[in-house]
């Protein structure tokens, strides 16, 4: 019996040892035994930006050699069989041992970082069946001596972008890991190709970040702040909560509070991860940049992504200046994002974040207030945005069965995702069952198109929507369970100042 078990073990080992790994999942694997080793380094060329006042372009005379960190590397025979798999260290170094003599082997470096129960990030060509980028050495015989084989990806031939992209993401992940070593990052695909001429750069809300690669226009492969900004949205989606409604936005805008926070967070994170407050977007012939810490206070306020990025960066950085006499580092910000911000009963905003921060670090409340008030924002006292200068409630409380009047939207600051395009209502349902939600125009421009989204607060989820094209009224029936709810009321006619009455219940 023991002999049978012994034989079975050998057979299984040989079977698995000879198998091509069906997934390139890193970790050291070696299917051969021999006296030789191959060691080396994987590097790539990084093109740096040239900033000229507020413009930024890639400077191809300023290229540094960087190491490809934590990427998967394989030793492959001419037959295609993978002999061994390993991962580079933070110096880009890899090592294969026990390799056979006189065997033609190539070294293949993947634009992929994989560490079990830690991260899984790869750079793919989204225009060619999601092809994984790899960098190949040549088939060279191992001979009878160990060798060092170094591989380098060039910028001039567009080999280095996938590795530059990974490096930016690795920097962001390390910032978080240094704060919380137990974190596990869900899989993420970075979609980049020179064919991404019209794609835009964005996080898709799931497991993809799309990156522009138009070499004659806008390409983002070396714009680390942009990648980290988008990664910041991925982080919010996976570890925190982002209620942002998205859409176009600019630093002088009066934005919906959810969008303002989300974009301010992304901008601030890019400066926090790199410890460089200059956010830049290079473009052929032009490009632009901004200082996330010191930009001119253009329309400051709780609705301003620029104010929020300055506040977040000042809370983090070690550079005390003016109203900023606080250097919290990243950990408290991370703690708020992954706890109270994730479960807050109102929409994620500067109010929910600062309230959460002051709750966990009450001894710093006064210094936090000082940073906030430097942006012409009154001291933040709750998640509802009370205590604001204009004193107009952001959130109105509704009692089920009664009508809430004068829920007024306007387009003073623009449309779709600007301040006052959306109004927020909160209410509690004590008795479950079907109830009607009805929004009716009560004054203002005619031919309005009121719509709404209904959110259950715990766990936070969009549970229903009323988005018909019916003019002047929107109504649905919804089967409520007991609990707390939020309504986001808006008008898609964008005609200007319009007021509605809102009722929940029959």
């Amino acid at each position, binding site marked *: 019996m023991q002999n049978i078990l012994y034989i079975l073990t050998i057979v299984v080992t040989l079977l698995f040892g000879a198998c*091509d*790994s*069906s*997934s*390139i999942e890193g970790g050291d694997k070696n299917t051969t035994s021999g006296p030789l080793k191959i060691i080396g380094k994987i590097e790539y060329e990084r093109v740096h930006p040239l900033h000229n006042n*507020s413009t930024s372009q890639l400077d191809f005379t300023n290229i540094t050699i960087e190491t490809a960190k934590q990427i998967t590397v394989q030793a492959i025979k001419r037959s*295609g*069989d993978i002999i061994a798999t390993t991962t580079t260290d933070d110096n880009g170094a890899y090592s294969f041992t026990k390799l056979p003599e006189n065997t033609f082997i190539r070294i293949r*470096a993947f634009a992929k970082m994989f560490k079990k129960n830690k991260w899984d990030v790869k750079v793919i060509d989204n225009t*060619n069946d*999601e*092809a*994984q*980028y*790899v*960098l*190949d*050495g*040549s088939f060279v015989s191992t001979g009878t*001596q*160990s060798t*060092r*084989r*170094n*591989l*380098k*990806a060039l910028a001039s*031939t*567009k*080999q280095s972008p996938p590795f530059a992209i990974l490096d930016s993401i690795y920097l962001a992940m390390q910032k978080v890991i240094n704060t919380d070593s137990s974190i596990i990052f869900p899989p993420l695909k970075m979609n980049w190709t020179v064919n991404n*001429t*019209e794609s*835009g*750069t*964005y996080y898709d809300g799931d497991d993809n970040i799309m990156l*522009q690669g*138009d070499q004659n*226009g*806008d390409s983002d492969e070396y714009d680390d702040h*942009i990648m980290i900004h988008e990664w910041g949205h991925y982080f919010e989606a996976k570890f925190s909560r982002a209620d942002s409604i998205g*859409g*176009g*936005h*600019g*630093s*002088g805008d009066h934005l919906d509070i959810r969008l303002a926070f989300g974009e301010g967070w*992304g*901008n601030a994170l890019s400066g926090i991860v790199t410890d460089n407050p200059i956010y830049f*977007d290079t*473009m052929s012939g*032009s490009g*632009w940049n*901004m200082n996330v810490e010191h930009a*001119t206070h253009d329309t400051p306020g709780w609705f301003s992504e620029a104010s929020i990025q300055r506040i977040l960066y000042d809370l983090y950085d070690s550079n005390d200046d003016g109203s900023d006499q606080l250097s919290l580092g990243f950990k408290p910000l991370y703690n708020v994002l992954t706890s109270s911000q994730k479960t807050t009963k109102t929409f994620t905003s500067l109010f929910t974040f600062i309230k959460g921060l002051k709750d966990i670090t009450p001894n710093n409340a006064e210094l936090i207030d000082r940073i906030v008030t430097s942006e012409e924002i009154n001291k933040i006292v709750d998640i509802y945005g009370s205590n604001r200068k204009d004193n107009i409630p952001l959130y109105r409380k509704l009692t089920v069965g009664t009508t809430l009047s004068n829920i007024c939207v306007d*387009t*003073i600051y*623009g*449309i779709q*995702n*600007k301040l006052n395009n959306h109004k927020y209502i909160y209410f509690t349902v004590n008795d479950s069952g079907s109830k009607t939600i009805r929004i009716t125009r009560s004054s203002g421009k005619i031919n309005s198109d009121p719509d709404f989204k209904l959110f259950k607060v715990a766990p936070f989820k969009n549970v229903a929507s009323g988005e018909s094209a019916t003019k002047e009224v929107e109504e649905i029936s919804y089967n409520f369970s007991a609990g707390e709810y939020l309504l986001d009321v808006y008008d898609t006619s964008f005609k200007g100042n319009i007021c509605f009455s809102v009722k929940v219940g029959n």
Partner: protein
Amino acid sequence: MKKTKLLLAPLLIIMGLQAKPLEETKVENSNIKTGTTIGHYQKPGAPINMSYESTKVDAGEVSNINITLTTTTNNGTMNVSITFDDAIKNESHTKEKLTFKITPEQKSFKIKIQASSEKDGLHYIRLLTSVDRGTASKLRAFAVPLYVGELKPKAKSINIMKAMNGENISVSKAVETIEVIE
């Protein structure tokens, strides 16, 4: 100790080159191509969206390209800088620098371009836009396609292949140095 350093000249394959096609893929039939950034997520930049209609034409024929730029802001000046791929002829002599005044009533601006090319293929008209409100303005870039002639089936680059495990990979050759070590 003898060290032998080998410097291998790399076979450099420039990413994205259309080489000999490995397989046929679908060719689009419609003559009017459209696209929009409205409703899509956007990275930070100028608060501008772009929509277009671009008529597919044969080599030498004039294509009508209608571009609409919209902003969600209420005021300022929208600046647009237009560049054409070398293969494109600006038949309508559209100015390469345009400005539009944004008001609460006027947030959408149309640009009509007529263009042609003697060269079959996919060419681009690029727009670099900004909204100026008296402070440092961000930019946003767009690219509008011009489809000319026989559009070759979208070919896989010669550096797309399958690994032994069936995974699609996009291969480029490294600059490699090899030396014997102790």
